[in-house]
């Protein structure tokens, strides 16, 4: 709307006939007035908005928008985000069958300082919803009762995502063979300058090594050499094994015997989807660990495929 007013043709200079009887001090002299009357010579049409914002502005009046790490094209098509936390909430929203848009964004844009966040339809409210309140939003929208709080056993199993997260961070950010993937995911959408890209990549890597070290209980400035890679992967393997065992127990095929996949499934999907989709290469070890978990029966891979099918279009 501000754009529209800025590019609207400026009002024509006043054509009030100058009063000959009382020439004001501020009246424009006749010859200049004549000259000015020729302007503007041409009024151009306002520039079109970028494609992405056009879709967002027209549709976001009625649909909520989830801001995630993604590329422009992927976000437009509602493709899965490339960040585990964003993908978790994207998956949960999609499972709840609420129509929503996705928009690429960065942490700087988020009111909480981290992605994702949800912006409700513009006609309803302009207050962003942080990721933690998304389950409450879903239950309001679908007018179902709020899913009961996770059981105590579920909370214990939720902590198994931590070793998987540490191994994921180590693989993506600190393994040299995955730096092209890191560049594609996080650097290319933010900058095209190679100098800035290098700086950004080294910042991301050092932040990731700090997070992994902290998760292991070491001082977070020790540097990547303080991380024991073998132990990190062994820990992730044990966690995946335990999750596979849990899944085999369930009769419905979803965690904790739920009728349909819930928040726990979405949280694990955030990691496993990225691992199986992008990191299941010979030089990566996480993909192999996922496939082998549960005694080589591919329990987790089957679960991943099932959930993917349910989501449709992923």
């Amino acid at each position, binding site marked *: 709307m501000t754009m529209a007013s800025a590019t609207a043709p400026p009002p024509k200079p006043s054509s009030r006939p100058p009063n000959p009887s009382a020439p004001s001090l501020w009246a424009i002299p006749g010859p200049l007035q004549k000259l000015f009357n020729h302007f503007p010579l041409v009024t151009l049409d306002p520039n079109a908005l970028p494609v992405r914002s056009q879709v967002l502005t027209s549709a976001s009046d009625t649909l909520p928008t989830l801001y995630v790490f993604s590329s422009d094209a992927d976000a437009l098509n509602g493709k899965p985000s490339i960040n585990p936390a964003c993908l978790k909430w994207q998956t949960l929203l999609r499972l709840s069958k609420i129509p929503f848009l996705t928009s690429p964004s960065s942490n700087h844009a988020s009111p909480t300082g981290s992605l994702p966040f949800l912006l409700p339809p513009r006609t309803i409210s302009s207050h962003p919803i942080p990721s933690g309140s998304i389950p409450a939003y879903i239950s309001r929208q679908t007018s179902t009762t709020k899913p009961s709080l996770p059981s105590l056993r579920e909370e*214990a199993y939720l902590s198994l995502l931590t070793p998987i997260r540490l191994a994921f961070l180590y693989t993506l950010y600190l393994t040299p063979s995955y730096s092209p993937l890191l560049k594609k995911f996080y650097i290319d959408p933010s900058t095209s300058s190679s100098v800035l890209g290098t700086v950004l990549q080294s910042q991301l890597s050092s932040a990731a090594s700090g997070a992994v070290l902290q998760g292991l*209980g070491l001082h977070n400035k020790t540097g990547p050499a303080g991380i*024991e890679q073998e132990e990190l992967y062994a820990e992730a393997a044990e966690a995946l094994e335990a999750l596979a065992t849990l899944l*085999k127990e369930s009769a419905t095929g979803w965690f904790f015997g739920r009728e349909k996949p819930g928040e726990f499934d979405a949280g694990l999907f955030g990691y496993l989807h990225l691992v199986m989709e992008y990191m299941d290469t010979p030089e990566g070890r996480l993909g192999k660990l996922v496939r082998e978990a549960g005694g080589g029966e591919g329990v987790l891979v089957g679960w991943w495929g099932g959930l993917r099918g349910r989501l449709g279009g992923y």
Partner: protein
Amino acid sequence: MVIQLYVWGPAFGLPSIDAECIAAIAYLAQTTSKADYQLIQSSPSAVPTNHLPALHDPSTRTWVSGYTSILRQLQSHPPPSFHDATFPPPTPTIQADSKAYTTFLSTNATPLIALYLYVSSANWAASTRPAYSKILPMPLPWTEPAQLRQAMSARAEHLGMSSLDTDVETEKEEQEAAAARRAGWISIPASLTRGPKNVGEVMAPEEKRRIRLEGLARDVLDVIGEVEWAKLTMGARCAVLGWVSLMIVDEGVPRRWLAEVTRGKYPGLVEFVEDFGRETFGVGPRGWERLPWVEEGTEVQGFNLSLSQRLGHGVMYEVPWIGEVWRRWWAGRRRREVLEYKGIKQAPSLDSLVFAGLGISALTMGAAIWYWRTLPRFGASIQRWERPILTMGGLGAAGAFLSSVFDEL
């Protein structure tokens, strides 16, 4: 050869001041005969993995650190007398549950202990810090506890309870007051602004946030409080012993919120932990003293550092900017040592090259600075003083007269 377990020393009447260390000691005590292992009271700067507990297995030439890694090492390369009735675990479900609860303790209970014993200024000053001073050999209490407190506070950061650290809070207030004075705000002397204290000011930060702290504690304790630990693996039972026995520490601790919540609301858990502690370490308040402790420095290994070296590293760590580079380099070097010791070939080290480069550039810089300082100031005219040559003309009127006389001669 016997395996060696490096742990933090005893404190609060427990075998160690660290939860992971207690768990590792308990697991060894439960599964292995005393002749097969040694316990060494140490600190992270002494071990090549930079983290305690650390296990050194001379037979396989390995160093591993961290509780679950030590468990894996012991189970895959058992000492001769190793016997764990729950390994391999009876059913996959028990195995999965044990893994989940052990991970839960290390990810969710550690931040609570960090808040209780490290972040809270009162508890840190009155009990934790003195305990570290007692278990570290002399110059090391100057450097290591501060680093440890930093690392532990970082682990509790997401709980958002930094106000327990009253040092930081006071510093913040002082800075704000100083900034206001600098900006020219009229400041009223503190003695005039201070009216009668209200309830909130008199309360300690722990008392003010008691409800939130209790909530945080209950989130964790609810989960571990209703588990039937006796049915899980030995590894999980030792883990709960390690973490919960630190949570119920209350002797000499001024603000006992965590111990009060745990003892008051979860008597079953506390009872299990105390029984299991007696079963593991023997009856008596300090039964763990009968375990095979060995004086540090008397054990055989190739990674010993002298106290002065350890102090030196501690000091280097704290130097701004350089400290970070130093940490990285040191961690990398120690990692190389461990891998070389295990017999894994390493690419030749570039350390000497880097040091030579640093030395040469420092020398060049020094020389350049010295040369620069000897140069005259830029733009200044060069003034040269020369001794005047003594001639007759320099002697005034008499000189002129005399020189004319000499000329005529």
